[in-house]
């Protein structure tokens, strides 16, 4: 009972402390990038990727990924699936995704 009382007291204090600290946007972006990336993993997440079809994108440079996604979005790069996926990504989402995938270790 004594321990539970202590934890409860700290919890109340915690809420007060947290409400005074602004949200850390960096942490939220990483989580958001990770959530967005789950849409990519359906096709890009295999070690067995042949690269003649869908490349593995883990560990690719962020600059390359940003450029590729922007080209798909503007339909200057061909592939109907990627044009559809990139078509609804804004600049911030593209940056988050590129940062996330470039931070991963290559699958190969």
């Amino acid at each position, binding site marked *: 009972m004594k321990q*539970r009382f202590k*934890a*409860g007291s*700290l*919890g109340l204090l915690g*809420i007060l402390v947290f409400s005074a600290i602004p949200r850390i946007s960096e942490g939220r972006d990483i989580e*958001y990038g990770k*959530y967005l990336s789950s849409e990519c993993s359906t096709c890009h997440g295999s070690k067995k990727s042949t690269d003649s*079809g869908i490349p593995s994108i883990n560990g690719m440079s962020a600059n390359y990924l940003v450029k590729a996604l922007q080209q798909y979005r503007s339909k200057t790069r061909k592939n*109907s699936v990627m044009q559809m996926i990139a078509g609804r990504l804004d600049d911030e989402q593209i940056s988050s995704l590129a940062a996330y995938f470039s931070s991963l270790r290559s699958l190969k």
Partner: protein
Amino acid sequence: MSKISRRQFSQAVGLGAGALAFPNIAFGARPRVVVVGGGAGGATAARYIAKDSKGAVDVTLIEASKRYYTCFYSNLYLGGYRNYASIGHNYYGLAVNHGVNVVHEWAASVDPTNKVVKLASGASVPYDRLILSPGIDFKYDSVPGYSPEVQSKMPHAWKSGTQAQLLKRQVLNMKKGGNFVMVPPTNPYRCPPGPYERVSMVAHLLKRSNPTAKIIVLDPKPKFSKQGLFMDGWTRHYSGMIEWIDPQAHGGIKNVDATKMEITTDLDTFKADAACVIPAQKAGGIAMAAGVNDGDWCPVNPNSMASKADPNIYVLGDASVAKSMPKSGFSANSQAKVVANAVRGELTGSKVFPARYSNTCWSLIATNDGIKVGASYKAGDSKIDVVSKFVSKNGESAETRKATYEESIDWYNGMTADMFA
């Protein structure tokens, strides 16, 4: 307070804040998620919740089969492009890499009041959130004369596995110049282009082994997915072999006789040397047992896939009403990520992001002649709305069609890794 280090203080504050909002965590018990069904929806949901919660959520997957044979690509097995073993997968990765408790038993019923899943063995599995991804069951009586007893004579082969093996054997054993008769299902059903990819793959198989054989499609629907693309492909690759007959012409399926291998319509009685009969479909039985269905399917909230009947139960994949998304493995996998995000948010307080869905269905017409249809989606007020869509076109170059097929191979590899790795 002065004796607590800064690090200890931060940890205690974090725990305390969590303890008020999430009482399970306060007393050391991890919140429990039970997933029923280890296919494209269930395996993905279990994997993402376990992976992303890093042990904070206790995830149990109830799936009777120890080896899962994918429905997607079972047509390519029929056509001879894949061997049977290559479409089989196990649950080792979920258990070993992500700590999912994989229970190979049959989920018999759900007690939503006490939040317990009851297994056929008699054991009970309690949950805080239940995710149902049971796929489909058949409405056998939708095709007069069809039943579980006759499915070995006229396989549906619509859940992969043994039925797919059986159908392939029966096609290969047809007499020279014999008839293959296909009865596709009525809407809505699993994998809209699937029956027509199957026709293509059977034609591919027969073109080599039995080139004078005929394929007759007795469709209960007046039109079908990617119809123009399939029909163009059938003319180019299998000229004179395939006859598709719409319901206005045949007047409806009046009876199937598996003993005589005959399918009767108003137009004629068709003699089959091999037949594939796919009945109408409904949500898997456990969804009915849980009481989250409205008729044949389970309504869900488009922003989370939570059941409209019970907020502690989520339904995804084929069993759900996810209009405008088709019932496909890709859709189920996409929906699973929205569910995983929502469930983790409810149980651990992690950030919940707006639902975004996508789907692509690739089909193979003949060697290196792949086509695709797809769309992206968002949660609307009353249903899942299309954001944008695309579909292959007739007259595309051979290079484009080959690239589409190669894309589908890597999708299969990516998809199965996303479910099981």
